[in-house]
């Protein structure tokens, strides 16, 4: 039943040979990898306006048209980061982004910091974007507000299922909403500029400003800049997800990256300029895009199209994480810093385990925060800029070692990128420290510690299994213990099996009901006269306790003896039959799994009805 459901939801397994067919064109990859980055234009300008408006509480008058130069500065930073990542794509066409670059050039600790930052960022992106999209739905239909957590979970599960169907399928499903959002944004900006150029809207006159160099003023501007840097989140997605491109991989990925950065710059600057031209401050009850759409097109089909596409892109920002998180996990897992299962391709040639893990953690966050994750927004900018900085700094080292022509100017570009993103990281960390940036540092340290522990475990396992000091053991002595609840076909089958592997077979029964065991003894002597039956009493009615102790005793009975516990077990042919029987066998298996020098074997008896 599970297999049929899986096939309906996910589709039939794909052959490994079909992997090249799963690679995407630039157009399709843009839809998958750009949704996170482009969705930030839906709120980045608003974040700047919100930060500037906060000055009023401190008695500072900050003209809101400052949002335009701040957006301009962020666009310049975007260009620097995009060019730097373009260089990364050129040098590391196998992907991995900050992790791979830092590992090759800055060392393992820096690489782990980069990986931890990115993984955290991807998880938060899913939680935050889905919560934001669902908030848009519940704003439109307030009756759904009480179901927001369920809606968030449903959205995550839907995106998960589409992604589990494969890269091509997710690109096909999600390309429409992404391109529709781009179209709506260009319509909004085009319409707004047209009305501005026609003189239908007049920007407000410049306000008198206070002393520009006061500390509070500078802090406020920096805070607005840091808030607006939310626009950069997702720029790294192309460099991390480079493996999904069709060849020539580097070139296709670079073109996609530059197209994405250009779209972001145009949409972000356009929105910021319109906010100034139409004099729309931050209003908590209505988003900036909604205000602009209403003012430019009136409340009609175009306005609703803009609102719907914004809602869709906010939810689909999570899709970028589903593309990149599992890929990064697979690269980190190949280096044994994450469980190996994360490095395996699933039925549909995607890293299904990574996707499931991402969905689970994001759902957990959404449930814990009740579907409202505003508190998490400040957290993920720190992670993003840490990854940016490590990646750029790593590239500077890479070019310095390289003998490639143009390595000098390439190093200079990356150095500018590294310094710029490090400064933003510092600003974001300082201004958002109290809002939760400290938590990122704690979480980063915890994740890096976990990486090290996992790697250490794999190292210990490899060393223990190594053949370096292997010595062939003496001939093994073998005692088989068969736990029995009574005597029947299933038990006798297990006894026969035990006799086939050992000359020393002991049957053991735990008498927990205080019953007289004479009847069992008599039956036993009739059916298995040559196998000793040990009947243990259990005054506290536990089967597990006396049985496990007895098995321990058998293990120490003879020197260099291996004990095999042969468990008779029946297998139902209906899944619900399982619930009609007690689970002693399952508990016993789990308990014995952790005991050294004990081998557990099941002898299944398949029920016919």
């Amino acid at each position: 039943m599970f297999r049929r459901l899986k096939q309906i939801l996910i589709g039939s397994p794909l052959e490994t040979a079909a992997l090249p067919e799963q690679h995407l064109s630039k157009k399709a990859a843009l839809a998958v990898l750009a949704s996170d980055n482009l969705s930030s234009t839906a709120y980045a300008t608003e974040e700047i306006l919100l930060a500037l408006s906060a000055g009023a509480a401190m008695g500072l008058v900050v003209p809101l048209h400052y949002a335009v130069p701040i957006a301009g500065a962020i666009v310049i930073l975007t260009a620097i980061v995009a060019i730097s990542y373009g260089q990364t794509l050129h040098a590391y066409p196998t992907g991995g982004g900050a992790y791979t670059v830092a590992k090759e050039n800055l060392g393992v600790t820096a690489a782990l910091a980069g990986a931890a930052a990115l993984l955290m960022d991807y998880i938060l992106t899913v939680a935050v974007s889905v919560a934001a999209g669902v908030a848009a739905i519940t704003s439109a239909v307030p009756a759904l507000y009480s179901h927001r957590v369920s809606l968030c979970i449903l959205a995550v599960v839907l995106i998960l299922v589409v992604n589990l169907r494969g890269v091509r399928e997710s690109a096909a499903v999600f390309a429409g909403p992404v391109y529709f959002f781009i179209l709506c944004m260009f319509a909004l900006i085009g319409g707004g500029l047209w009305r501005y150029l026609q003189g239908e809207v007049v920007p407000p006159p410049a306000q008198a400003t206070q002393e520009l160099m006061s500390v509070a003023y500078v802090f406020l501007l920096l805070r607005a800049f840091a808030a607006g840097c939310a626009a950069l989140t997702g720029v790294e997605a192309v460099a991390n997800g480079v493996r999904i491109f069709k060849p020539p991989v580097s070139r296709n990925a670079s073109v996609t990256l530059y197209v994405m950065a250009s779209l972001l710059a145009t949409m972000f600057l356009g929105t910021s300029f319109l906010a100034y031209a139409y004099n729309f401050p931050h209003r908590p009850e209505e988003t900036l895009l909604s205000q602009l759409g209403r003012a430019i097109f009136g409340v009609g089909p175009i306005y609703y199209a803009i609102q719907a596409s914004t809602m869709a892109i906010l939810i689909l920002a999570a899709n970028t994480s589903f593309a990149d998180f599992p890929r990064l996990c697979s690269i980190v897992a190949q280096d044994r810093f994450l469980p190996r299962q994360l490095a395996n391709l699933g039925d549909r040639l995607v890293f299904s385990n990574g996707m499931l893990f991402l969905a689970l953690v994001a759902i957990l966050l959404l449930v814990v925060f009740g579907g409202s994750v505003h508190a998490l927004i400040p957290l993920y900018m720190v992670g993003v800029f840490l990854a940016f900085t490590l990646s750029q700094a790593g590239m500077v080292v890479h070019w310095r070692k390289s003998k490639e022509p143009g390595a000098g100017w390439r190093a200079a570009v990356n150095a500018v990128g590294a310094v710029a993103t490090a400064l933003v990281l510092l600003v974001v960390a300082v201004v958002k420290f109290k809002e939760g940036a400290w938590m990122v540092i704690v979480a980063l340290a915890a994740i890096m510690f976990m990486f090290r522990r996992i790697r250490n475990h794999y190292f210990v396992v490899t060393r223990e299994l190594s053949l370096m000091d292997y010595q062939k053991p003496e001939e093994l002595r073998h005692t088989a213990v068969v736990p029995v609840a009574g005597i029947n076909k299933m038990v006798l089958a297990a006894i026969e099996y035990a006799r086939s592997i050992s000359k020393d077979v002991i049957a053991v029964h735990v008498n927990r009901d205080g019953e007289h065991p004479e009847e069992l003894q008599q039956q036993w002597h009739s059916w298995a006269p040559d196998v000793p039956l040990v009947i243990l009493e259990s005054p506290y009615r536990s089967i597990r306790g006396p049985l496990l102790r007895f098995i321990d005793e058998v293990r120490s009975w003879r020197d260099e003896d291996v004990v095999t516990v042969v468990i008779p077990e029946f297998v139902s042919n209906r899944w619900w039959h399982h619930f009609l029987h007690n689970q002693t066998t399952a508990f016993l298996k789990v308990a014995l799994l952790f005991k050294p020098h004990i081998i557990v074997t099941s002898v299944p008896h398949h029920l016919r009805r």
Partner: protein
Amino acid sequence: MELTPERKRSIRQRLEPHLTALDPDLHFIEVILDSERRNLGVVVQKEDRPAMLRLDFIRYVSMPESELRTTLEEQLRAKKLIGNSRR
């Protein structure tokens, strides 16, 4: 390997008085001989705690009662089924 009922009975009759003397709560459960006919496993139980005492079968046959008792006592003490106070 299963011993004959007579053999089992005679081993039980020999061991049970020693076990009872060491601790009246100790119960003789079963006796097993391995396929090499070297190791005798004596299964005893106190409350819900089973134990398997090990005796060299060849030596057991000619073992004096005092030595047999000491062997049982040492193993039971090592398995913490009887306390030091009984020494």
